[in-house]
């Protein structure tokens, strides 16, 4: 972070805070979604960008957070403000259980095992009708009255996402974050200098699962309902595409990606809903072949770039 970063951040916060006064509710919903996807992708990028671990099953933790939140409110009668911090713990517990196995593998196999576990989560949600409602999902999990309006929920989401991003940024800038980059650059050398590689990877995995769970829980209350789709594999590719769009080398890349992603989705699916997956796939292919650094990389902004191994 450079000296004028706080000023930039302040300006962004100011703009975001004043938006509800200027824009119709629809855009607030779009911005709320952007914030949630941004958090999801940033949590995901803790693994991909900083840990060098690409998970193909992050929908699992998003869905665990969303379903835990919905179930706590609906079946256990827990108030929403209590369910919101508890639900990510469920996602983190899932990440701990699965991550224990997943971090034993590397590269392609890492990606595939994470996908396998996510498919298991999806199947359990899909089949366990008595608890999760199966295909029908769980409906009517709206937040209590003051938060129900788009504007208040927008502020609420911004605040929660902001806190989570600060926490994630603290993780990335901590000694742990630098050790994680060392693990990414060379697991063997990291081990030589005394870094417990697997433990660092597992901790990163659990943290990433936790914040994905926060995103899931926020989305559950935003959407007012949860569905098994949340755990299905296309959902796992969402943070991947978003992070890729924005640039995986920078902390803020995924946030920029979330903006681009959601606005594109809105523009395209408003007119041609059928073509959205085509456009999405096409963008992915193009970004990979033409723009390896993502859009942030394109701007050549090296300011916020994660420095390789400190």
């Amino acid at each position, binding site marked *: 972070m450079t000296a004028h970063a706080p000023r930039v951040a302040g300006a962004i916060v100011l703009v975001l805070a004043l938006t509800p006064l200027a824009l119709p509710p629809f855009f607030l919903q779009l911005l709320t979604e952007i914030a949630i996807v941004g958090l999801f992708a940033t949590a995901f990028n803790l693994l991909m960008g900083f840990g060098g671990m*690409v998970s*193909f099953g992050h929908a699992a933790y998003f869905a665990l957070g969303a379903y835990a939140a919905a179930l706590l409110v609906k079946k256990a009668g827990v108030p929403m403000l209590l369910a919101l911090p508890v639900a990510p713990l469920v996602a983190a517990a899932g990440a701990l259980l699965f991550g224990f*196995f997943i971090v*034993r*593998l590397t*590269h*392609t*196999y890492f*990606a*595939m*095992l994470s*996908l*396998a*576990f996510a*498919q*298991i989560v999806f*199947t*359990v949600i899909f*089949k366990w009708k008595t608890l999760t409602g199966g295909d029908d999902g769980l409906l009517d999990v709206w937040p209590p009255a003051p938060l129900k309006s788009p504007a208040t929920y927008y502020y609420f989401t911004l605040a929660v996402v902001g806190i989570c991003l600060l926490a994630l940024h603290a993780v990335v800038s901590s000694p742990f974050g630098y050790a994680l980059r060392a693990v990414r650059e060379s697991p063997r050398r990291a081990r030589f200098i005394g870094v417990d590689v697997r433990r660092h990877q597992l901790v990163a995995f659990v943290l990433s699962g936790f914040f994905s769970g926060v995103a899931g829980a926020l989305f559950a209350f935003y959407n007012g309902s949860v569905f098994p789709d949340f755990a299905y*594999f296309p959902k796992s*590719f969402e943070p*991947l*595409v978003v992070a*890729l769009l924005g640039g995986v080398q920078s902390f803020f890349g995924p946030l920029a990606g979330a903006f681009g992603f959601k606005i594109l989705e809105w523009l395209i699916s408003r007119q041609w809903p*059928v*073509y959205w*997956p*085509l456009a*999405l*796939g*096409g*963008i*992915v*292919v193009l970004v*990979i*072949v033409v723009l*390896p650094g993502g859009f942030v990389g394109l701007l050549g902004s090296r300011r916020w770039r994660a420095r390789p191994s400190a």
Partner: protein
Amino acid sequence: MFLFLVSVGMSLIFGVTRIVNLAHGSFYMVGAYLMVTLVELLPERPWSFWLALLLAPLGVALLGGLIEVGLLRLIYRRDPLMQLILTFGLILVIGTLVLIAWGPDNKSVSRPEVLAGSVRVFGQPFPSYYLLVLVLAPLVALGLWLIFYRTRWGMLIRAATVDREMLGALGVDVSALYTQVFVFGSWLAGLGGALAAPTVAVAMGMDGDVLTTAFVVVVIGGLGSFAGSFVSALLVGLLQSFGILVFPAISIVLLFALMAVVLVVRPWGLFGRAEE
């Protein structure tokens, strides 16, 4: 059987090019849809089904060739995960194009007249089309074995799975080999789809279904292993059929649990080789 064709193609492509082709299920789907169209277009003659069965996989092979030359060739040197993500992007692109070309309705292909009925096996009626598939399965496996172990081309493929750099250093055009293998793998997936078309509803979403199962097959059998794909396709097929009888609710979980166990115990699969 269909599963075997798809998995062996996927495994072959991985073995040589080190790309996990997530779009392989899409190739299978395109094979099935091409079969639908060809059977409709060709005049109703006894031979038209067989001609379609010949042409549909060739169409898929052509598609595979275009993708390999136009896209994948550009990124072989990049991070393998980027390749994985690229092929995922292709799933979306191909899926949508198929939707636009053929529409959202389920299609079906009628079986050729000779095989439309059923025969009695041990007193039970048994659709004769499956008999064809049962006969074809070992034939295809045998054919593949002959190609891999009795031809120069097969030897090059096996050499490429062991050590690509060395093969290139010995003067083999590895880049052309990649294209050939990718085309051949796509052809196998297309054949799988074309053969499966008369037995299933040809519909959107069949790409994802077959991909996840083929993926499990390939991982359990060992990426890049021909024998592995064969044994594990059988294993997974049996597990699916009996799993549905015994634990209907969790048969898919069973499948993925098996894959998870294999990945943890032998990450390179039952028949694969450890990598370093």
